[in-house]
């Protein structure tokens, strides 16, 4: 067999500091809540110590953001704001390699994904929303939409820089200022982004980054000086936020969990469908809220699809995230790994058949082999709960109506996929799927021009595209 020698990306492009402060008012400042460590999930080594923001830090950051909003950013003509945002986009491109390596170190995702997906898409979001900054009156949201004020943003650990871009780019384009809290386990690219804001000469206070844990996020969301809350993360935390802001004048968007159905019909382009299934669930180790974690296959081709999928899974390479040939990197944290283990054990206990390709996992770090469960029914926990890991549940259906019924039979509704050669069936299904995005003959495809968001427990509001502006404007 043709063995691929390791092709590790160099770490030397990243200049890691031993400790990082908070980014408030255009400068790195000390926090008053102590510090925590960010570790590399692939090796468990400590990468850096990061300041923990407490309520006093949140106060300070919101005040600074308010001042920047009142005095500078909201008054600036859109075309001027656009220049800064374009500049940020270009610096992201220039420093793409550095950002990609740092993202893979801190998050555990394979370098081929941070290099080819995360960072280019993050830059694309800044480019796209820079274009809107002076055209807000033409977005069909009213003739003269106004910014909301200070946006408090809390983002997850699965796509640290990309989620930052989804939040920061439209907020700035619309004239808001930002206080953003990155996830506890993945704060480092946000701090590098703070340096990029300095490099772009962004006026002080327009973007503020507070690192910390759940309590920091809660303090930010609850702060009376925040006009808009944007959150991406678990449904559980989303519920707490919704309760917290209920009855206030804050605008809220929530991007929460998912348990997406990926539907394969018997006339599907099978070879591409297999790739779509793989992309759908094994992309980013399955740490994707819109992951296609429930595969629904038409019974007449179910056996063939599963056989082909198993063969394809044997070629997946699991291991060092910095190796350019790695397809699946590390699980982001020990806690997440434990959760995946609990749910997969439940899958076995409930009678589903578990299968993983033979693969050697590294001894250190948090790793989990790509896994599929066959013989899954709608009643199994693994068909209902979000696992947020490289674990696929395979179910079958007999007719299009049954496919729709099973696909919609979930508490979530973020995304769905359909694989068929029939255009009419795609349209028929897209009308019936209760999901924010329905991909046809593709999966996990993101673009700044395309709105993204969910139904039911997957949250509310839309990010991306023209629709994404609405969340940051008073219309």
């Amino acid at each position, binding site marked *: *067999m*043709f063995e691929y*020698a390791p092709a590790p990306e160099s770490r030397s492009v990243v200049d890691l500091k031993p400790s990082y402060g908070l980014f408030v008012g255009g400068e790195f400042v000390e926090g008053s809540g102590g510090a925590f460590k960010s570790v590399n999930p692939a090796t468990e080594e400590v990468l850096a110590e990061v300041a923990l923001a407490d309520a006093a830090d949140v106060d300070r950051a919101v005040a600074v953001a308010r001042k920047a909003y009142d005095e500078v950013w909201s008054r600036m003509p859109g075309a001027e704001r656009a220049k800064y945002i374009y500049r940020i986009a270009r610096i992201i491109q220039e420093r793409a390699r550095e950002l990609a390596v740092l993202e893979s170190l801190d998050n555990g995702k394979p370098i081929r994904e941070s290099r080819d997906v995360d960072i280019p898409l993050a830059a694309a979001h800044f480019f796209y929303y820079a274009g809107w900054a002076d055209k807000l009156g033409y977005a069909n949201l009213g003739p003269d939409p106004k910014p909301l004020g200070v946006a408090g943003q809390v983002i997850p650990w699965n796509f640290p820089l990309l989620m930052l871009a989804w939040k920061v780019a439209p907020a700035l384009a619309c004239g808001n200022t930002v206080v953003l809290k990155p996830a506890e386990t993945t704060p480092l690219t946000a701090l590098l982004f703070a340096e990029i804001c300095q490099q772009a000469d962004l006026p002080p206070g327009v973007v503020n980054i507070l690192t910390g844990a759940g309590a920091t996020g809660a303090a930010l969301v609850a702060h009376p000086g925040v006009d808009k809350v944007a959150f991406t993360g678990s449904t559980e935390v989303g519920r707490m936020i919704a309760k917290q802001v209920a009855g206030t004048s804050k605008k809220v968007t929530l991007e929460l969990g998912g348990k997406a159905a990926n539907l394969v019909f018997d006339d599907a382009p099978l070879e591409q469908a297999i*790739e779509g299934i793989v992309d759908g669930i094994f992309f980013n180790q399955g740490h994707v809220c819109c992951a296609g974690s429930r595969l629904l296959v038409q019974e007449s081709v179910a056996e063939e699809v599963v056989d082909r999928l198993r063969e394809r899974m044997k070629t997946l390479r699991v291991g060092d995230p910095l190796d350019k040939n790695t397809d699946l990197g590390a699980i982001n944290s020990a806690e997440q790994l434990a959760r995946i283990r609990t749910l997969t054990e439940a899958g076995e206990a409930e009678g589903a058949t578990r299968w993983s390709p033979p693969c050697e996992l590294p001894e250190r770090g948090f790793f989990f082999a790509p896994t599929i469960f066959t013989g899954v029914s709608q009643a199994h926990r693994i068909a209902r709960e979000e696992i947020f890991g490289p674990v696929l549940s395979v179910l079958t259906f007999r007719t299009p109506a049954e496919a729709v019924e099973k696909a919609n039979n979930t508490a979530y509704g973020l995304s769905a996929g359909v694989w068929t050669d029939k255009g009419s069936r795609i349209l028929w299904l897209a009308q019936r799927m209760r999901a924010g995005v329905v991909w046809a003959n593709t999966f996990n495809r993101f673009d700044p021009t395309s709105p993204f968001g969910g139904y039911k427990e997957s949250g509310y509001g839309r990010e991306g595209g023209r629709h994404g502006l609405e969340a940051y404007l008073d219309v």
Partner: protein
Amino acid sequence: MTAQLALDDAGLRRLLHGLPPVDQVGADARAAKLGTRSIKTTAKAEALDLAVRMVDLTTLEGADTPGKVRALCAKGIRPEPDQPDCPSVAAICVYGDMVETAKAALAGSGVKVAAVATAFPSGRAPLAVKLADTAAAVEAGADEIDMVIDRGAFLAGRYGAVAEEIAAVKEACRTGGHDAHLKVILETGELATYDNVKRASWLAMLSGADFIKTSTGKVSPAATLPVTLLMLESVRDFRAQTGRQVGVKPAGGIRTAKDAIKYLVTVNETAGPDWLDPDWFRFGASSLLNDLLLQRRKLATGVYSGPDYVTVD
């Protein structure tokens, strides 16, 4: 899938159009992703040598002379005169009238002679002429015959005619007790759609092809990675269903070692390691070999040498 299947147009259409369809966007994306594999150090050395062993070193010019063909044969046997560890290529590919020259020049080397036949490259000649062309090349000593399919008949849905022609040429490969290998050129650049590429691949395999080959090199686009990916999927599925293994040969436009390695990665991850052998995978190329040799030297010495350090034959 047996030879008992009705080889009439309607029967073949039902069979070929019953294959799972191909989504072009997805196929292109898959090929692009395979192209990002990073092959370094020992893996690269292994890949470069394997690629050299898979080259069908080709000259198909109207101006070909015995001298040119003999020079090419010498290079094919010993691509790097000062490096005895450098393997020979798989075959020398020439027009039918050059087979005897090539055969003599390659005697005892193990390098095969491949001849293009059947009114290459257009294929627009009566069947009798095509068969005579094939038989002449085989009698002259060709080990392998590269035939072109009748694209006009294929595009018109006359699958039976295409199948019969391939079967007849395969028969002509056995002229005079020989048993030349048959490579069937689909000329994928003229087939227009990926569904057609897949159907033509199956049609050729069902009709007796030992190899399926992308292109003549005379039509653009010639070999592409997505088309080769589809053909590799087809041979893999064909073996799974019939037990018979068929080879794949991308030809035309593959000029760099980097590209060749992308093809090898695609073979490895699609059809599987069973195809990573000159018996089952070939590159039809004229200029690829020199880049493989330059990269081979770079790997051995750590520095790039110029084009003057490899021969121009």
